[in-house]
Every structure is written in C-alpha cells, then in structure tokens.
C-alpha cells in the first residue's frame, strides 16, 4: 500500500512500507549510537558499553552504525524533504504552540501531512546528522589526521558531542510524542495506518486533501 491512500476498511495509510523500513533502520541505529555514545560521554554511563560487548567493540561498531544512520537519513531526505518546507501554517503552528502543548488541538492551525514540530525534527536530525558525520569521520580515524591538521581533531571533539546532545533533545521529544502522547502514531509507524478520526483531528489539511483526491 502506498502512503496517503484510503484503505478499503476506511482507515488511512499514513506511512508506506518503504517509509517505515527506512524509519526503523534510522531508529534502531540511532538507539545503538545513543547508548554507545553515552558510554563514551560519561564515566558514569561507561557500563552501557558492557551491554554491547565492551568498550572496544562499541568503539569499533559505533562509526559503522553511524554510517547506517546517515544513509537512512539520506533516504529520509529523498522521501520527505519536499514535504518538509516551512509554510504559513507552520509559522502559525509555532505561535499556537502553547495550545498544542495544552492539548487544545482545536486552537492549532490545520496541519498538512507533517506539522511544524515534525518538520523541525526532520531538519534537526538532517543537519545534526551532517555535522555528526563530518566530525565523526575525523574521530573514526585519528591516526590519519597528521599533527599539522590537529585543529580538525580539536574541532571534532567538541562538535560531535554538541550535535549529539541536540539530537538527544529531539529524540526525547520525538519518542515521547510518538509513544505516550499520540499513541496511534506509534501504530502508524509500525503498521502504516491511522483512523480517519485521527487524521481529521491532528492533520486536517492532509485529511481534506486526501478526501478531495480521486481514489
């Protein structure tokens, strides 16, 4: 089934199989990167490395998982970038954020397939991913960076954790929203479908567009 289609049982397909597969490749690789990264971040969390085969194994595999993550984010860019442009509705969404936070969703301007928050999440992970990749490549091969270029290493050791922390902020909000807050959205990312009521309430512009489209 393809995304943005009404299914025979009246439910709506929100995420295609391709979108879900790419999302979970990114999600699982990010989780690995997060937990091993936190092990390197703080001595109080170094025990996390033990869960993944010890510090040496974690150090070996963390960069490879990073490559998987970055490639998945690249696919996401191809899938979603053209749906992530900021619109007037998104600007109004940010002005209406206090209503959104207080679950007064009728006060929030009608979102299309992705609302302003989801777009910030997308571009946040996209740009953080680029900085994490560039600094990560330097950290992956420190012996290949000659002494005369050591300032690149000095930059990488600060850029990598700063952008990792930014993604942790995005990740906390994303997981909270996708599981506890909007429970049906977790199902939509697993099986692909949402109810018509859910679509009408949280993404009205998208729902109206779907209903108008011939199918």
């Amino acid at each position, binding site marked *: 089934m393809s995304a943005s289609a009404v299914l025979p*049982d009246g*439910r709506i397909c929100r995420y295609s199989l391709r979108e879900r597969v790419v999302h979970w490749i990114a999600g699982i690789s990010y989780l690995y990167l997060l937990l091993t990264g936190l*092990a*390197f*971040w*703080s*001595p109080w969390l*170094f025990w996390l*490395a033990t869960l993944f085969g*010890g*510090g*040496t194994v*974690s*150090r*070996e595999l963390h960069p490879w998982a990073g490559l998987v993550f970055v490639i998945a984010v690249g696919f996401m860019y191809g899938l979603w970038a053209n749906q992530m442009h900021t619109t007037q509705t998104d600007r109004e969404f940010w002005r209406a954020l206090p209503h959104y*936070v*207080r*679950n007064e*969703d009728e006060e929030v301007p009608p979102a299309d397939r992705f609302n302003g928050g989801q777009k910030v999440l997308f571009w946040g992970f996209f740009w953080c991913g680029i900085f994490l990749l560039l600094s990560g490549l330097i*950290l992956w091969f*420190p*012996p290949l960076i000659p*002494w005369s270029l*050591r300032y690149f*290493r*000095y*930059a*990488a*050791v*600060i850029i990598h*954790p*700063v952008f990792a*922390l930014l993604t*942790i*902020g995005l990740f*906390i*909000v994303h997981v*909270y929203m996708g599981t*506890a*807050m*909007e*429970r*049906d959205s977790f*199902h939509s990312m697993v*099986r692909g*479908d949402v*109810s018509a*009521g*859910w679509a*009408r*309430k*949280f993404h009205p512009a998208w729902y109206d567009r779907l209903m108008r489209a011939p199918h």
Partner: protein
Amino acid sequence: MSQATLEIRRISGHAGSVPGAGLRREFEVCKLIDTTTCIGCKACEVACLEWNGLTFSETTFNNSYQTMPETQWNYWNLIKFNEHERDDGTLQLLMRKDQCMHCEEPGCLAACPADGAIVQYVNGIVDFQQDHCIGCGYCMTGCPFNIPKFSPTARKVFKCTLCVDRVTQGLEPACIKSCPTGCLHFGTKPEMKELAESRAAQLREESGFATAGVYDPAGIGGTHVIYVLHDATNPEAYGGLPNDPRIPWTVKLWKTPLKWIGNLAIVAGLVGVVGHYLRFGPKLPPEEEERP
C-alpha cells in the same frame, strides 16, 4: 613507590630512635635531558627498544640524522635533529630526545573515556593500560606533545612508560642507563629541577648562552621530563617543542562545562516530558475506535 610501604614505623626491642624516622620522602620522579650535552648517538633509542621489547622499525631518510619523522606506537624514544640558523647566520645542530613528557596535568588522561586506560601514579608517571584501552584515540587529541600513537594491529594506543617497571624496582629508565655523555639524569623532581637550573646558570654565565634555561612548562602543571635548552626562549627550534603547551581548549570545554550542561539538559528533558504527561496527558483521537 612500592618501597614507600617498607618505610619502618616501629621496631621491636630496639633501643633509641627508629632509623629513617622523620625523613621526608620525595615520591615524584623526574627525567632531566640536557640538550646541550647530547651528541645524538641514539643509544637511548636502542635501549628503549630493547628494554620494552619493541622491534626495530623502518627508518625514514629526510636529509637529516633523524631516524623517522615522529615517534611511533612501537618507537617511543626519538632524537629530533634540527639545523637551526641563528640570527648571526651561523648554524647550530640541535638534538632533542623526544618522548612522553609525563605531564602533571595530562591531556591524554583528561580526554580518555575508558575506565582505567590511563593512570597517573603518585610518582608522576603517566602510564597507559592497554587492556583497558578501547582504541578511540582521544588521548592523541588531548596530548599537546603528539606522543600517544595508535597501533593498527593491536588497535590500541601506546607510548613511553618512563620504564615504570624499572622505576618501581628502584632502577633508572633504560634510556638513562644507556646515555654515554651523561646528558640524561634521573631522580626526584626537586633534585632534577635544581640540577637543571644550575646547569642553565652555568650555560648563561660561563658558556655564553645568554638565554639558556629549563623547560618545565607551567601550562600543564609542569612535567616529569624536563629539558635544559641553550635557548629557552625558542623551544620550537628543537624539533617542534611547543612554546606554551596546554590541553586543547575544546577538550577542556567538552570535558567540564559541556558535560554539565549536557547532563542537566538531558535530565531536564526527561523530567519535562514526564511532567507534561502527568499534567496534560495524551492526545487522543476524537472517538475511541477499534483497532484493526
């Protein structure tokens, strides 16, 4: 260091004072390298390889007597040769034995994320424990002297140990043992500092090296390897000895303020979402529908 525990506290059936009581022990060791009496014979390079069981490496010829461009993971002790042109146009062949400086505030140790991979002993020796090393190479970024080197086969980082195995047995490091000119000395830090200062004063007053001095950089709290230089105002001339070595500021920023800010932000984020759920709860669809 191990002998310190054998210092006698009480003696049975002993008349009079306890031998050695009240003595002040100096634990901190120091290697003194007098570059003005080094002849570049490289005996220390060979002694280092022999004692530490390192195989000889491929040498690199670069129009100089120097064995290779920089120390390697299995070559911890390297004499750096530099033809230095003085202001009056005359040449000076500078020779400096390069190895780990055993900093009082080691950048490698500050940058290392692996539990117990780098230790600093009370005697000042900074030693790598390869069985705890995870091979990340952060120590190479933290070091201001370009000393720790990554072994592609072991995938761990190695460097000079100041022959900690010899020192704990009361022996001097292998390089010191092999030096034929006596330009290398080993002892306590205050002793070596005093010897270095007196040699520098001699160079200034009797040998015409007006700017001779001791290299014991304060930016990293001093080092447990110190140099006497003919010209202490220009250590860079001695094969790139940094003028004012410090732990890179990005490493310090990463390891202290960023760590605190980051940890607080993560905890605040987690508390925030839990608080939000308790106060506002989930966003539910308009009508409870049966899931397929």
